[in-house]
Every structure is written in structure tokens, then in C-alpha cells.
């Protein structure tokens, strides 16, 4: 699975959880917090991504990730690891 595909999964989940982002373009350098996600929304996006990518890891591992690019890189390593 490519990083672009993973980015599409993550942004898809983000838009499902925050429908107001539907017509907003999302840049990989942005953080979920920048895009208006609260801590519960952010956890839900990561958990839904885990489910859809069929990977599991403790949420603490993504706690320090700063932006979507970092999350995609992390998920990419998990999916292909």
C-alpha cells in the first residue's frame, strides 16, 4: 500500500468524523488539531484508520506525531512492516 493510498484513508476518516472538512483541501503538513479535531476526534480517526488498514498498535505510539505526513509515514511502516 502506498503512502498516497494511506493518506486517502486517513483523510477519508477525518472527513467522516469532521464533515465540515468535506470541501476543504487537506495538506499533509497540517495537523489534525489545525483542522479542528479535538482529542477524541483525533483518537477516533486513528482507531478507524487502524480498523480500515487492519493494523493494531497502542495509541501512545502516535501521541507525539506532529502532522498528517508523520501519521501517514507511521501507518505506512506498520502496514508494510
Amino acid at each position, binding site marked *: 500500500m502506498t503512502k498516497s493510498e494511506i493518506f486517502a484513508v486517513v483523510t477519508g476518516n477525518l472527513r467522516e*468524523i469532521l*464533515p*465540515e472538512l468535506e470541501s476543504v483541501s487537506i495538506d499533509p503538513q497540517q495537523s489534525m488539531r489545525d483542522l479542528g479535531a479535538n*482529542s*477524541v*476526534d483525533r*483518537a*477516533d480517526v486513528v*482507531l*478507524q484508520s*487502524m*480498523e480500515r488498514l487492519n493494523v*493494531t498498535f497502542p495509541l501512545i505510539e502516535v501521541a507525539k506525531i506532529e502532522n498528517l505526513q508523520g501519521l501517514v509515514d507511521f501507518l505506512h511502516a506498520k502496514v508494510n512492516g
Partner: protein
Amino acid sequence: MPAAVAVTGLGVLTSIGRGSEAFAAALRRGACGITASNADGLGVAGRLPPFDLGTTLADMRLPEPLLGRALKAGRRAPLSQQASLLTALEAWTQAFGGNTTGAAAASIIVAGNNVAPGYSYRMREKYADNFGVVPASYALHFLDTDQVGILSEVLGIRGEGFTIGGASASGNMGILQAWRQIRYGIADVCVVVGALTDLSPLELQAFRNTGALGGTRYAAQPEEACRPFDRDREGFIYGQGSACLILESAASARARGARVLGYVAGAATCLDANRLSNPSVEGEARAMRLALEQAGLLPDAVNYVNAHATSSLAGDEVEVKALQEVFGPRVSRVAINATKGLTGHCLHAAGVVEAAATLLQMNGRFLHPNRNLRKPIEQTCGFAGESTRDLDIQAALSNSFGFGGINTAVVLTKSGGSM
């Protein structure tokens, strides 16, 4: 002197109508919301027609920032929270329009405990094979107090807020507590919401196994299944619904020239020293008398009773005896009907739904029919017939009784007296 308590807003969402206008029209028609289906595991029930929160909020023409806040807090929330949000917003805007400046000092009471086992059941089914990815938001939503949080955030309420339980008497328990909030000056405005009870097939089966739930004999004629006070009744029929009342001190309502829908003149609750499901004539009569005493009214003043009347075998029988005890021979001249015959039993929300039904009949000057009441269990009671008639309700009793010996009654009046 304790404050007189007015009702200045009302919102309803039930199987027979969304919004108070539609609900009032459905009451007047004697509409039936009870249908049969096995697809959702509910069997014979008063189902809420599916709705989309965004579309429904758009139909309500809410002003910003109320609309934006409601969408943000409610769009991913479970059914019961969404229902409460809709009824609370309807009631609030009826009382105050889009103005939420008075909300900071208001209180919120959500009637019902353990309101959504159906939601938990569905989440368990969905994540049974992968508990690890259960949404973090489930930790917020499975709590009944999420309802308090959502309404507080959307309306900007910063006074007291809590849930209160009383099984099927929760709604009246909520009104009682809201009445005390205003009467004793804790708040000038209190939002009381009866939460939609979201049951799973597990709870329904348990109710069936206790003998309380009906719907078996009338599975092929669901509109016949709920028949309060009828000899052929079989048990209560589950109904999905929510309602909200805005209680406000009469002085505050008067000062801002608000439209008053009626008054909560008194309310009371008492126990039976019994943890089981069986009702008690003595306890029910005592709750009605205590509520009338609080209202400063004699039974003679009451010309309408919205009965608890679930269509259960023991419950309806006991309530008739309690009504006979409170009203004596005059019970034949008190108009009595059962809103559950139309909506099914809205459980935690029932007391608020039925207070709303009482106020709507009071304002519309009518008495809604008793659906399916063809062979009354008692001839001496003033039961409404199978068709609607005119009635000028001056003072009403609205009863709710719950498992665990919980008895409640609320007195609603057309005029507010001198207080």
C-alpha cells in the same frame, strides 16, 4: 414565597409526530405509531421514523451559531442524544427564539438512567471481533450524562445539570426536580428532557419474560396491540420518543412577555418499600394526593388525568383502583386517557411526553381518544372514548409509575394562581 412555575416551551419527537405541532395534530387524530417488524429486533413497537440530524435541524431554521453548535455536537451522537437535541432545540426556540443569552444561568435535567442499552448492544456487535479499535468517542456517548454535556454545550447552559432516574417514572421525576429548581429559586429557567429509551432485543426479551411486555397476540395487527384499560390488553408496547419542556419562573415569563403554555402547579414522588415490578394502589394514590397537596388543589379541581396506563395487565388494574380512591364517585366525571395507546410506552421519556400531550390538549381544548378501548376494565371511570372530543382542561394530573415501587404524579394547570 415559592415561585410559580410556568411552561414556556415544548418539544416532542415520537412515533406519531416530529415537532409539537405534528404531535398535537396526531393526538387529535388519535394516530397510531405502533408497527411490527423483525428487521430491527424490536418486534411490535412505536418506532421513531428514521431521520437525518442535519436535514432535520435545517428544517427547523435554527439561527447561527445555534445550528453550527448543534451539528458539531450532535451529528455523530447516538440516537437518544440526537432525539434530546431536537426536542430541546424545539422547546428552547419556542421559548426564547434563537436567543441563548439567558442560558448561562439556566439548569438542565435529563430524565432517564441507563437510557441506551440498545446503543451499547449495537457497539458490542460491531466491535466484538476487534475491541481494540472501538472509537474513543464511545467513552463519552455511553454515559447518560453525555446528554447533559451536549445540551449544555449547544445552548450555552452553565447552571446545574444532571440526569435523574425513576425507571418508567423518570420523566415525571425530571419534571419534579425541574419544578423544584424554579420553585426554590435555584434557577429561573430549567430545561427538562425526557430521554429516548434505546432498548436492545436483550432488554425487550427480559421485559417479555417478566410478563410485562405485549405484542405477541397482536403481532399481525400491531395497531391493535396497545390497548390501555381494555380487557383484551396484553402488556406494554415499547415506544421510542423524547420530549422537552422549558420550565420558567412565572415572574420571569411575565417580565419578558413570554407565551405561557400552562403551569406546573405541583409534583410529588413516593416509594412503596418494594424493589419488584408490581404496582401498589396505596402508593399510586398517595403520590397523586401528595402532588395535589403541593399544588394546593383538592381532587375536585381536577378535570383531566393523563394516566400512566401502559396496557399492562396488573398496572392498568391498579391505577384504576388508585384513581377511584383519589376521586371517589367523581372518577366518572374526570376525563381519563392514555397517550401510550398512541405512542407506545416511551419509558424514561414517558412522563415528559405525556406532560407535553397534556399541555397540547389543554391549549387545543380537546381530549385525545383512547385507542382500542372497546371493553373497559371498569365502567365507573370517565375514560375517553375511541373518538376525539372537546375538553377545556383546567387542572390535570399526569401519572407515571416505575419498577421498584416508584410512584410519581405531576399537576398541570391552565392558570397560574396568585403566586
